[in-house]
């Protein structure tokens, strides 16, 4: 079966290479090795029946003696899987003999291999780039990219729960990386890999549901990875494990049913422009990580595409890279500001245009008047990223907020609209996996004809009531959400 951007991948750890890779790791036991052996059994594919999973990622070559045995041992599994319409992706890692591994992959009928770095030109099989986000070859020929350094989403347990400077608790989310991926590689399928955290107690089903929802809400796919205990219990057909698996599959199915939203574009009054590469990666990624925490909706625009991108509907643009833009892009950015927008630029912006304007002294930006708009030049070469985005929000002002979220400290949200603008969806993720004491509440400046909440936690979509506000706009009160919900808006 051919791999596509619609494929739903799952990590399928099984076989001698998997055992060889893991046997020297802490906590690896004979029981775990047995499960890895068991998952070679084609009968184990039965758990995939009726689920959206249609692609399995298997260890293929790692430069170990077990490589050949692995490829041989996987043969029955691959054959049975292919008959069932499942595609297989071989993971080539470490010091593997790549030409030999590629040849074996072609012979075994794998749909693709995934490996770090640049794909060999003569691979003869689709090669999925499999890299850390900061090193990803966004322009690679493959229709699918796999980000190898995703994080398990949630509220981090090993830091102060009091939260960060954003007033709200820190959350671990893959959202920033996936927003960047979508801007840098539009139209490509994006996979993201992360394994369950090692912990003494079993992970709950809602932890897995969030692991599915966090990437899926951004239009990406988690390479589903189950913990050892859950895999063992699934092999033994224990009911709690089967129930958890059913919920994981249910969350995946939900996003498949609502895949139209993945074609929508994120909206917001602010656009962040960067090349998101090299030294600029960390600053850009952190800015995009923090903007949702200060409740600032935004879009991401790849610098390479910015000159041709539409700035319609934007109030402000944050040009993030210290490197000056091309002459054409600079001209376009300045024109945007002169037309009434606010352009935020780094301290190295050469020869800032316009006379200085009055601004609060604490602000990290020197503000200049530029036509009908403003140019805001950062005062510091390496500013604190949180202070930067907070000041950007201060200067933009809340006056024209289209959306405001209340009662949801552990939630992130973002707003997307269809190409024609008639439909919109507010994606809402709860990283605490516990509903807050009060249900979330949205202020929406422009009321729509219809608002309904869809969520795998609800038996059916719930129509939401518009509560008009005296000062303008309306509020939507939502029922409590544990993991994920989406407010669909229609005009």
């Amino acid at each position: 079966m051919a791999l596509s951007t619609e494929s739903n991948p799952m990590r399928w750890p099984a076989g001698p290479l998997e055992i060889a890779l893991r046997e020297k790791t802490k906590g690896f036991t004979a029981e775990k090795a047995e499960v890895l052996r068991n998952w070679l059994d084609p009968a184990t594919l039965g758990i995939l029946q009726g689920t959206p999973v249609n692609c399995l990622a298997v260890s293929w070559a790692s430069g170990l003696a077990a490589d050949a045995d692995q490829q041989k041992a996987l043969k029955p599994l691959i054959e049975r899987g292919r008959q069932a319409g499942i595609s297989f992706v071989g993971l080539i890692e470490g010091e593997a003999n790549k030409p030999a591994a590629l040849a074996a992959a072609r012979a075994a009928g794998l749909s693709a291999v995934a490996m770090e770095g640049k794909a060999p030109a003569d691979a003869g099989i689709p090669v999925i780039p499999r890299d850390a986000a900061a090193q990803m070859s966004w322009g690679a020929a493959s229709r699918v990219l796999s980000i190898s350094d995703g994080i398990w989403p949630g509220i981090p347990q090993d830091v102060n729960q009091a939260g960060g400077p954003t007033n709200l608790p820190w959350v671990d989310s893959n959202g920033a990386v996936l927003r960047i991926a979508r801007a840098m590689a539009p139209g490509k399928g994006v996979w993201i890999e992360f394994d369950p955290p090692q912990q003494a107690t079993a992970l709950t089903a809602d932890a897995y549901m969030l692991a599915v929802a966090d990437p899926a809400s951004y239009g990406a796919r988690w390479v589903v990875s189950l913990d050892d205990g859950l895999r063992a219990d699934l092999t033994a057909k224990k009911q709690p494990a089967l129930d958890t698996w059913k919920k994981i599959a249910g969350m995946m199915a939900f996003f498949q049913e609502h895949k139209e939203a993945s074609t929508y574009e994120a909206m917001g009054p602010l656009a962040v422009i960067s090349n998101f590469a090299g030294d600029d990666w960390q600053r850009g990624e952190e800015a995009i990580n923090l903007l949702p925490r200060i409740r600032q909706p935004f879009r991401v625009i790849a610098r390479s595409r910015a000159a041709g991108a539409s700035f319609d509907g934007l109030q402000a643009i944050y040009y993030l890279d210290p490197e000056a833009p091309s002459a054409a892009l600079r001209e376009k950015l300045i024109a945007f500001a002169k037309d009434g927008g606010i352009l935020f630029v780094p301290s190295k912006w050469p020869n800032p245009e316009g006379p200085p304007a009055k601004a609060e002294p604490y602000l990290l930006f020197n503000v200049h008047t530029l036509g009908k708009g403003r140019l805001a030049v950062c005062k510091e070469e390496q500013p604190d990223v949180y202070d930067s985005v907070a000041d950007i929000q201060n200067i933009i002002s809340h006056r024209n907020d289209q959306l405001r979220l209340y009662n949801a400290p552990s939630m992130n949200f973002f707003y997307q609209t269809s190409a024609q603008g008639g439909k919109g969806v507010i994606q809402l993720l709860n990283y605490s996996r516990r509903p807050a004491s009060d249900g979330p509440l949205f202020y929406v400046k422009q009321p729509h004809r219809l608002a309904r909440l869809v969520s795998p936690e609800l038996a059916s979509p719930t129509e939401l009531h518009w509560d008009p506000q005296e000062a303008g706009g309306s509020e939507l009160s939502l029922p409590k959400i544990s993991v994920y919900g989406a407010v669909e808006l229609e005009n």
Partner: protein
Amino acid sequence: MKDELTRREMLLGAGALLTLPAFPAWGRAAVTAPTARVSVGRCMSYGPEVVPTLATMFDQLGGLDRLVRGKTVAVKINMIGVRSQRLGTAPMEETFWTNPVVIGGVVHLLGKAGACRIRVVEGPWSSAETLEEVMYSMNWKPQDILSAADNVEFENTNYLGRGKTYSRLMVPGGGLIYPGYDLNHSYADCDVFVSLAKLKEHAATGVTLSMKNVYGSTPITIYGEGAGVDEPSIRPHGGRGGVFHFARRMPSKSAPQQIDMSLPKDAGYRIPRIVAELCSARPVHLAIIDGVKSATGAETNYGGRPQAAINPGVLIAGTNCVATDAVAMAVMGYDPMVVRGTAPFASSDSMLQLGESLGIGMREMSRNEVVGVPVSQVVFSYSAVRDKILAAAAKKA
């Protein structure tokens, strides 16, 4: 905690304030604390009745003209707590924050009475945003307040703001925790200081009324968790808990430091004293408490506490903050004379008692004159609401 109390605190707790020969300064202050007039008005909603009700109340206090004509007035409002965390669907201005209609009404009447400049001030939680921005983020219309009188302006007093330096205000008599405070210039650059508070409870100090409202005047660039060590930070970060509530760290060294480093690190000890000190260092000329709508249980939504949005339907105003808060406590169904160990001061000292000891005002109802609607007609028992919530929860469980 009781082990940490000094003899003086124990005596105070026992209500032996007036028999403290060993502590003459406190004793003298208590005896000389002024009595005052407090007006109570019935006001069930934030509709058109707010302004006439306030106008009547101010008249009952002797009129605003004599207090503010030709003067610069600073109005400290209350917008404390994480703004995105409501109590249910009720907006902050109907639970924990001073309502913008009341703010606008007070500003309008101050202007009408001849105030030449009115500066609305507050230090919103951990933010350097302008007050307009905070109001916009809450779906308020700041223009309604700015246009309620001539020469109205806002200032976020969490940091230096528009001042060139911080203003040092010393506590008469030397203070209990700190000898003085460095505040935003707005608290010194005013002839009249108004505390426009909310009628609400407080998780640590029992109640938070016109006295406690002044606590939020302290800049978090000096007294916040992210304050500079030697000098004030440029930007405000964090809340005041680390410095004020629990003494986990000290204020910036540029500011007056704690008198005695061995003082208890208990919020119930520290906050009431800091409040009393602040009200002594920065006297409140007019205390106004918005009890039209409010919330029980705490000063903000903590989640999981027995809290409810309520409609006491009352406004309270007075020219003395201790007396006004005493009347407010009576309206809430509490005895203003109670001390630590009795609700609402279950685990804190009474800031009213401490204010009285510093000579700010009297909390005993019979020592002050209550005008307007009798307190008995507007009592709204906060503890009864809480009991009802707890009973309902118990029944559900």
